């Protein structure tokens, strides 16, 4: 049994490597003793998004990458798989978490219903503070629901986590564009947590971007996950990050016959994680390194894409769909309306321990702070901010 292989390290390196510091040996030992509820609660105590993290975390560069077994010429403990087992058990057995009674007068708004806000709101509920989550999307969960590749995390699983947070007494106000309402929210609440993530994909700034058949990677993945969309026969994805790979593999699942990834740098510079790249290769996706996109051709809709190599050679790839995935933009307009919140290079500046911004009423965490990392980073930020807000409200207002 995998759980009994864990050495139960003291001050375990896997725990230190996890952004939320899940006590890995503790939860694994509990699995080994058959105490699955205790195991799940150990995980959720550190990381409310234990379920999605057990499916989407890049464990190779986190806990499993730090496991001492590597130095012992042994396979690292399969922490992700064990965590999934504990989480699956938990969600199959009347999931619920203890909360404190809502005995605090101060109320907190969390903008965005992604991992950062969910973690923050849950932490506040544990400490007796009422919390309300706002999101402009009809479904909560942020990129967990709309963005992350389907094969890793299906929307129903993302929504299970949301339901857990709802069951803790957090109120959700969905379909609400907070941009327009920020003054009203400021009036209604005593503290505001910004978990707004990042914006849509950057624009390329080349001719042809408005042709039908040209679709933002995030939009494409979101539609794939939550409704049905047509896919092209030949698809070109621009960029080679994890999102590009997710878009390419989603196109494959939807039935595209030929998929190309065009990247302006080389294989070694590719930002996607190693295992994501492996998956893409297995899907038969064709990679074009050191290739710059010049323009998109087409009369009614996308017909081909014109590319250039560093040596100046120009070539055309025939295609009927182009998916740019060159990184998400920053929500600078919105942040500009949050008075007094300092923003540097499009990222909210915070105190790392408490999540507090320059405007002391505002706290922030997740992608809008770290520039776009992973779910587990957003969960860690959210939890720290939840504690930070509670402490600030207590100290400042009694």
């Amino acid at each position, binding site marked *: 049994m995998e759980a009994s292989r864990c050495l139960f390290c003291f001050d375990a390196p896997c725990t230190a490597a*996890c952004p939320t*510091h899940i006590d890995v040996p503790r939860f694994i030992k509990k699995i080994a003793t058959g105490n699955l509820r205790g195991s799940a609660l150990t995980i959720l105590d550190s990381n409310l998004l234990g379920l999605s993290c057990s499916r989407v975390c*890049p464990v190779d560069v986190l806990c499993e990458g730090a496991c001492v077994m590597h130095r012992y010429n042994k396979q690292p403990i399969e922490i992700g798989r064990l965590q999934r087992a504990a989480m699956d058990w938990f969600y199959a057995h009347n999931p619920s978490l203890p909360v404190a009674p809502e005995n605090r007068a101060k109320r907190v708004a969390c903008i965005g219903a992604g991992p950062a806000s969910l973690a923050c709101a849950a932490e506040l509920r544990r400490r007796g503070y009422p919390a309300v989550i706002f999101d402009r999307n009809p479904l909560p969960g942020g990129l967990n629901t709309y963005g992350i590749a389907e094969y890793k995390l299906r929307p129903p699983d993302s929504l299970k986590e949301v339901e857990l947070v709802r069951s803790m007494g957090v109120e959700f106000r969905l379909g609400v564009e907070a941009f327009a309402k920020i003054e009203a929210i400021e009036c209604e609440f005593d503290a505001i947590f910004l978990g707004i993530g990042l914006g849509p994909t950057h624009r390329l700034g080349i001719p042809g971007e408005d042709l039908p058949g040209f679709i933002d990677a995030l939009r494409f993945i979101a539609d794939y996950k939550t409704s049905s969309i047509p896919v092209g026969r030949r698809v070109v994805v621009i960029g080679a990050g994890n999102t590009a790979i997710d878009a390419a593999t989603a196109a494959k699942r939807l039935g595209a016959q030929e998929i190309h990834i065009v990247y302006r740098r080389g294989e070694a510079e590719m930002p996607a994680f190693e295992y994501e790249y492996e998956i893409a290769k297995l899907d038969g996706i064709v990679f074009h390194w050191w290739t710059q996109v010049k323009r998109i051709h087409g009369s009614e809709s996308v017909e081909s894409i014109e590319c250039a190599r560093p040596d100046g050679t120009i070539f055309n790839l025939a295609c009927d769909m182009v998916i740019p995935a060159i990184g998400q933009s920053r929500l600078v307009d919105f942040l500009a309306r949050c008075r007094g919140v300092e923003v540097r290079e499009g990222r909210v500046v915070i105190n790392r321990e408490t999540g507090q911004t320059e405007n002391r009423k505002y706290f922030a965490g997740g992608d809008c702070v770290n520039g776009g*990392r992973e779910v587990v980073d957003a969960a860690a930020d959210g939890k720290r901010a939840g504690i930070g807000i509670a402490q600030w409200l207590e100290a400042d207002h009694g």
Partner: protein
Amino acid sequence: MADLSTLFAGRIRCPNPFWLASGPPANCGDQVMRAFDAGWGGAVWKTLGEPIVNVSSRYSSVDLNGQRMMGLNNIELITDRPLDVNLREIGEVKKRYPHHAVIASLMVESRREAWHEIVRRSEDAGADGLELNFGCPHGMSERGMGSAVGQVPEYCAMITEWVKEVARTPVLVKLTPNITDIRRVARAARKGGADGLSAINTINSITGIDLDTFIPRPNVDGLSAHGGYCGPAVKPIALHMVQQIAVDPEVGLPVSGIGGISGWREAAEFLLLGCQSVQLCTAPMHWGFRIVEDMIDGLKNWMDEKGFRTVEDFRGLSLPRIQDWKDLNLNYKIVARIDPDTCIGCDLCYIACWDGAHQCIHIDGHASPESFAEASRRRIATTPIPKLDGVAENGSHKTPPERIPCVDEDECVGCNLCWLVCPVEDCISMERVETGLPAQSWEQRMESKC
């Protein structure tokens, strides 16, 4: 090439010292013959007596970290087959395997005539020797047999005498470990005229309780009863008892060692403590008769490597190495040393020494395990993203120096705990340090004080 052929108590010959112990693997002739074909040197037949009725659900076990049957418990009684069938099969086996040892294990009510009769019939059937089962700790003891005899030296001596009145073959007495001092019964067996001893039988046990039904295992229609414990878990207890009877001057009998043997290594340990043969029950129950192949092969290779031609060359070699505590050298000092090149940084030695020993393993910059763990908890970790962090992650898995503990050798008492918990072989070594003092035992120290 090493020679394993064995002569037990000067009279029982067999190709090797590996015998099936009295139990399920030696229940019938067909099994014993298949075992001999697989390579076993002898077999002690499942205990003969008045046939009994067994219960269903008879065994339960203790597993450890996924390893099944570290300890086995049974509430089975002696043979449930008719005596004449067993005796006829003993005869057949002996006819077809004249060079293997077949020993009849016996248990009948405590009447001289009953013992006389079963001894005669077993020897007439062809048994090479007799083993008196004074050890079975459950069921039979409630009927005044088994360990009920083995726990009372006088009964043990008396029945052994009865048997010796008629026996022509060597008589072994199988001892129960469920007694304060096993030497007292061993001496009684000697007094009764026994030619050898078998030790140990199973240990009184309750293996566990089902946490849903609250019924202990094994479950017989909602009830359980204490059983007899055996298997790998009991080896240390068996070795100790064997050593005690092996060195007792009032015993001085050949011993067949039993208890927790699962391969040639454990067998060699019993032989090093003076046993002339060894018996196995749980291991062949778990893995089948085939395990004897490696027992023969492994023991021979080990003997060749050590330069032993026969078992006699090393039998009992470790006995002088076991003395009383008072004879140990108080001026011998060892300390733990950690090899930083193989240390994987699990810090199990560190917490073991802090919580379970003498607080002398340290991590640089931390006064206690709590401060060490707290520092990690406070550290903010993020997923490394090369695009954002500007540095490519380094794929090396070298142990960070701050996780490699070091031993304060002045404070180390040389207890071995860290060495025992370290998962990496040879990473911690216990090394001798010169104290400059001559060897001195506690006894000598006390004498010199007077």
